[in-house]
């Protein structure tokens, strides 16, 4: 088993080294080499994302949370398929749900959070990564594998709640980290208010990710975090719901943060464009969706388990 893992790790490190060589040695061979528009860099970040996921797994591999049995295999596939179908339905082409103040309704993100939190990090990672991949494939996009890995991280981090025995204490730590990220996001927004919102498209209004970010989208990270806090203290007795939302919030920040930061190199975005124009308007609204939909899913699943006795 250990040997197998070492070989996987070796392969990942190999991919990483090759791409680093291409990125750093390549320009010496050919000065005009700019990886911005080549596909290579995307896969480098896929490699880095997988390394992060693998590192977390490696550090905690003794935990039963990583066990994958029949049940987990089936939940992985259900989660991924649901995520794919939901992202397809709400990508703006099937249901034309109008966006409010540059925030489009994309409730699908609750799926990897719920599956990750309920069934563990392995199920969460598969749900997010494979679901996003298939969702892009059936929509006809599918040019950004680093966002699939980012979505995988959302599910995986949501599932890391299982790795800690002291639920309350880990929840508090997660709350402080997410709070710090939300405040950092707000500070970035205030510093770069004129950054275009790159995830907002509205062909009818001739807007293609270039309208200045709206106040609501800019502070949505903080609004989302306040909602998350409201859930955490509103359901203080029901630690399941509070923990699911808090871990989901952290996963959302880290997963999308990873994807947005990787776009600094992949698409050559300036850092403030990636963070304010891409990260805030995607991660903030996600938090709002998560704070409302994840508790509903957790509560519904709990009552299903009570009824069926499983």
């Amino acid at each position, binding site marked *: 088993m250990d040997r197998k893992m070492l070989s996987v790790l070796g392969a990942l490190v190999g991919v990483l080294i090759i791409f680093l060589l291409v990125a750093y040695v390549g320009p010496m061979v050919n000065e005009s080499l700019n990886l911005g528009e080549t596909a290579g860099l995307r896969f480098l970040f896929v490699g880095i994302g997988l390394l992060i996921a693998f590192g977390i797994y490696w550090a905690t591999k003794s935990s039963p949370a990583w066990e994958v049995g029949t049940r987990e295999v089936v939940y*992985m596939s259900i989660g991924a398929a649901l995520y794919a*179908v939901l992202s397809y339905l709400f990508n703006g082409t099937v249901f034309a749900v109008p966006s409010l103040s540059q925030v489009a309704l994309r409730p699908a993100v609750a799926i990897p959070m719920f599956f990750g939190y309920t069934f563990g990090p392995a199920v969460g990672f598969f749900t997010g990564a494979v679901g996003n991949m298939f969702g892009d494939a059936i929509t006809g996009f599918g040019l950004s594998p680093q966002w699939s890995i980012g979505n995988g991280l959302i599910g995986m981090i949501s599932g890391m709640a299982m790795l800690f025995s002291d639920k309350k204490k880990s929840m508090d730590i997660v709350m402080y980290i997410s709070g710090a990220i939300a405040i950092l996001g707000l500070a970035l927004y205030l510093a770069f208010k004129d950054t275009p919102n790159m995830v907002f498209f509205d062909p009818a209004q001739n807007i293609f990710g270039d309208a200045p970010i709206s106040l609501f989208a800019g502070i949505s990270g903080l609004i989302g975090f306040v909602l998350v806090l409201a859930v955490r203290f509103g359901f203080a007795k029901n630690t399941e719901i509070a923990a699911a939302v808090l871990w989901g919030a952290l996963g959302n920040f880290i997963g999308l943060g990873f994807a947005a930061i990787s776009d600094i190199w992949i698409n050559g975005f300036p850092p403030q464009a990636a963070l304010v124009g891409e990260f805030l308007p995607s991660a903030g609204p996600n938090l709002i969706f998560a704070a409302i939909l994840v508790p509903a*899913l957790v509560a519904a699943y709990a009552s299903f388990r009570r009824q069926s006795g499983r």
Partner: protein
Amino acid sequence: MLVTWRYRPRKTFIQSFDPRAWLIFFICFFGSALMFWDVRFLVVFFGAALTLVLTSGVTWAESKRAWTFIGMFVLIYTTLTFLTGRGGMEVYQTEQLLARLEAPFNIFGWTPALDITLQRVFFAMAQLMRVWSIASLTILIPYTLNPALYGVTFRGLGMSDKIAYAMDLTMRFIPSFGRDFQLTLDAQRARGYEIENLKGGLVAQVRKMIPLIVPVTIHAMISSEDIIDAMDLRAFGVGPRTWLDELHYTRRDYVLIVFGVLMLVMAASLSLIGVGRFWVPAV
């Protein structure tokens, strides 16, 4: 319970290959096409994709929804980038004006005008060819890949038994959940639920998603119990798994794989030495 994608056996070029070989080729094609912005290179990919589609034996009647959707998407997207000139800024800095179309009227002192520049024309063409080549081959996959072979195909591509089976199930679940969503939506509509007419603030709108998302998710988990039982009864995951169908590479499969890998290596080398970037003819 499971609805399948519209696969049927056909005696065609694509389906004469081992599905593993075809997927490897598809990934190589995908990666190669992404390396280029030069229309002269992209036209090769475009032509290849078009030939594959036309010889795939997938009829218009069975696939028209997919084609209309992707066709509209690609057309609207490229037309809009063309009209506005946005989107291409990553690959070109200067524009050469070919013609300027001005509307013969003006609205409150504003005359609608369209700048046609060489760069915009070629960027739109490149974008159309890139997206279309990749999207059309992606659409063909569910039509040409036998659902009974999903699992063994992914296993044959090097995934572990469990992951291969999870991928298999995911692909099988997607159409059934799509149908479940439609059924749930219809059922909720019969009760007066209107997804097209969501009112209220963002929080209120998200809350109105609950009657759609929660039933579908919970229903999926309830029905999965049968699948879990069936798999457990067949001792899933206890030992190395065997598959009902076996896949064997033939010579033509090796030829296809070698061709795909060579194409990818060549495309990557060309793009590393700077060939195949955005190109416009000298005027």
